[in-house]
């Protein structure tokens, strides 16, 4: 039972990493796009490509937090007590990002837009770094069990946390650029496609290099995770490496429609490998999943809500993506369709 909920929890973490990660990464490319003139076109693409519901991806974060506090209250308590600083920074970053999302489209002056854009981009790097540092703190056993606080500073500034933070930022940038290449091609902008293709290759190689260095970091700083990654999680690690290499290969050969799912697979596999390596611990070597779990009826409630979400939410999301792909009705259809004329424009419907 607790295993099922732990899987649900990790599903939330993985989904947030993959969907939220792409959003954060887009902000990263926005941040380093250069001056106002040089960066204008990449920024315009970033702005456009960030999906219709991108801030709704925080739902996965909320989902993860709620499942953690409901299903594994003791671990949640320890994590929140110990990692107060990076989690607060992440929350503030989310406020900044979310507000600039809410306002950027509605403000019209250039300076206001630029300010909102800068906030958006900076927090897009801050939030994944903090999240990665939190993951590193947990993985390296710096969060003590038993509802007591670990060290407020050194708990998230250790080697594994730095690795986690840097890797998270790199992974986000990598995910986003694979998506941006495909988008640029879709709009027939070869220049911009080349621009993001180069960046995808750099990001892919850098991410792989960081992951490789990470193995040595984990060997010295998070031995339990290292042992897990080299034994029971090894197949997942290999899968991740294969996906990453495949994605790199297809990017070089300009088969971007294949590169993107492989990139997603590589990132998802890294997160899943972490989970498998850490098993059966919630907090490595101090709190097991089975020890920290809520009573069964609570776990059942979480599973029921999860299934309901899948049944109700997925079709709605599908409808939204369908609408996103569909062009505006008013543009294509003949002007004589009276049923549509009402909704089509703000003008009074013409005579029938």
């Amino acid at each position: 039972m607790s295993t099922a909920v732990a899987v649900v929890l990790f599903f939330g973490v993985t989904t947030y990493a993959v969907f939220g990660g792409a959003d954060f990464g887009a902000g990263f490319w926005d941040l380093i796009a250069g001056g106002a003139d040089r960066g204008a076109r990449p920024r315009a693409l970033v702005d456009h490509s960030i999906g219709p519901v991108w801030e709704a991806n925080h739902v996965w974060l909320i989902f993860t937090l709620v499942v953690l506090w409901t299903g594994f209250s003791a671990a949640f308590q320890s994590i929140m007590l110990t990692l107060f600083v990076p989690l607060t920074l992440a929350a503030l970053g989310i406020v900044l990002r979310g507000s600039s999302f809410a306002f950027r489209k509605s403000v019209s002056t250039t300076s206001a837009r630029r300010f909102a854009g800068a906030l958006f981009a900076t927090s897009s790097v801050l939030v994944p770094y903090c999240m990665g540092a939190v993951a590193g703190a947990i993985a390296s056993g710096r969060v003590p069990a038993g509802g007591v606080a670990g060290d407020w500073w050194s708990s998230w500034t250790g080697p594994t946390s730095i690795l986690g933070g840097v890797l998270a930022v790199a992974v986000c940038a990598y995910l986003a650029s694979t998506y941006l290449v495909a988008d640029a091609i879709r709009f027939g902008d070869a220049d911009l496609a080349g621009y993001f293709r180069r960046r995808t290759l750099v990001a892919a190689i850098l991410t792989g290099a960081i992951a490789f260095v990470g193995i040595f970091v984990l060997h010295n700083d998070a031995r339990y995770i290292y042992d897990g990654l080299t034994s029971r999680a090894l197949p997942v690690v290999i899968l991740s490496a294969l996906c990453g290499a495949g994605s790199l290969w297809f990017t070089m050969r300009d088969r971007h429609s294949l590169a993107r799912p492989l990139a997603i697979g590589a990132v998802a596999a890294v997160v899943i490998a972490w989970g498998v390596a850490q098993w059966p611990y919630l907090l490595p070597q101090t709190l097991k999943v089975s020890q920290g779990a809520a009573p069964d009826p609570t776990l059942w409630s979480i599973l029921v809500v999860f299934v309901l979400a899948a049944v109700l939410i997925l079709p709605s999301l599908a409808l939204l993506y369908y609408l996103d792909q569909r062009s505006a009705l008013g543009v294509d259809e003949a002007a004589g369709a009276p049923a549509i004329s009402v909704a089509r424009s703000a003008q009074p419907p013409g005579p029938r």
Partner: protein
Amino acid sequence: MLLGVNPVPWARSQMAFTLGAHIILVPLGVAWAFMAMIANWRAIKRDDADALLLAQRWSKYMAVTFAVGAVTGTVLTFEFGLLWPTFMGRFGAAFGIPFAVEGLFFFAEAIFIAIYIYGWKRMKPWPHFWTLVPIIISGIGGTVSVVAANAWMNDPGGFTLNSSGQVTNVHPWSVIFTSAMPYEALHMVLAAYLVGGFLIASVYAAGMLRGRRDRYHRLGFIIPFTVAAIATPLQMLVGDSLARYVYNNEPTKFAAIELVPKTSSDVPETLLGHLNSNGTVTGGIKIPGLASWLSDPSTGKSTVVQGLNAFPTSGEPTVREVNTVHLAWDIMVGLGTALTLLAAWYGASWLFRRRMPQSKIFLWLAAASGIASIIALEAGWVVTEVGRQPWIVVNYLKVQNAATTNGGVWITFLVITALYLAVGTTLVTVMRRMSKRWRAEVDLDESEVPYGPRPEPEKVLVP
């Protein structure tokens, strides 16, 4: 610990401030879709161009306020852990269940707001109209879920503790459906429609006072004001039942509300006034026997009301907390009564003259009704939260024992206060600017609001 300042008062302040800010956005998220539905229905059914314009513009305002509400809601999720880790650690297994349900509604609401905004140009009118229904249902469902969690804090149940105080068994159904939950949930849903209605109507009332008395403004006033005018008297009735529930089940809170130092019958209803540290009440207007009579009309003046002296822990709640609760109660009920009278004026005018009141005084009052209803909402929130002190989970966990031990909370309080003030100011500025652009006859495309569709690529990529 980080900079050793006692975190408890700062954690309380931060939670109060962020919840107080979020609760202003809630009525807009919950009730606006319903008003848009009325306008949209009129637009299609009667070919009403003004109503159509209203529905379209409202949907864009909704997107902006919902996006900000999503952010302030995410912060609250973090804060449950960051500020109250012991509360979550000990009771998360029970308290978390309504929040899991809430997440479902929140996700649905976000998706359907996006669908509605997309749909203006991509769906046929009637199917598009019906996409408002999930927004309305999830708005109400989300409110009920969160309030169920709050009701559980007031009236905890549905769990078993072992000797060391750990939750060993949970009955999810009883956690969600506590005895306080139906009253509190209905009270908050009505509050959302009441505040949302008055708030939106007040903007159009202000516009009419500036001479914009065209049909568009009248309709923009009448739709939300009518919703609020219907919700207000219902709210007074529900509030009355809730007060009687509090009398029966939360006697400490009731004693603070009614400012009753000593248990007795024939308790007067004290308007304003305050409690002194020696247990006497000074000032205020006393209406003899009314508090007893309202507590249980069947026994009238002889109804016994428990006083603050009846509760074992002396000094808890503190005199200051009692006075805060009583003042907040007076403000809520006072403003609620005033708004009921305003609603009655509006209703009478429709009944006898078949039109809304035309006088400037009415419009002035209507323009103030938005702010007044927000103050009443905040006051009601203060009554339930301060009235629960010193408990976070009544009889199980005190606020001071639930808080984080991180001494740096005062910093996060200051930062988040500054940030929220900036966000709030920007929100108002952005909405005013949207309205100015519309008045200047510049249309705002759906792609220019959050959750809206992406603009056409050629518009974007041309340097």
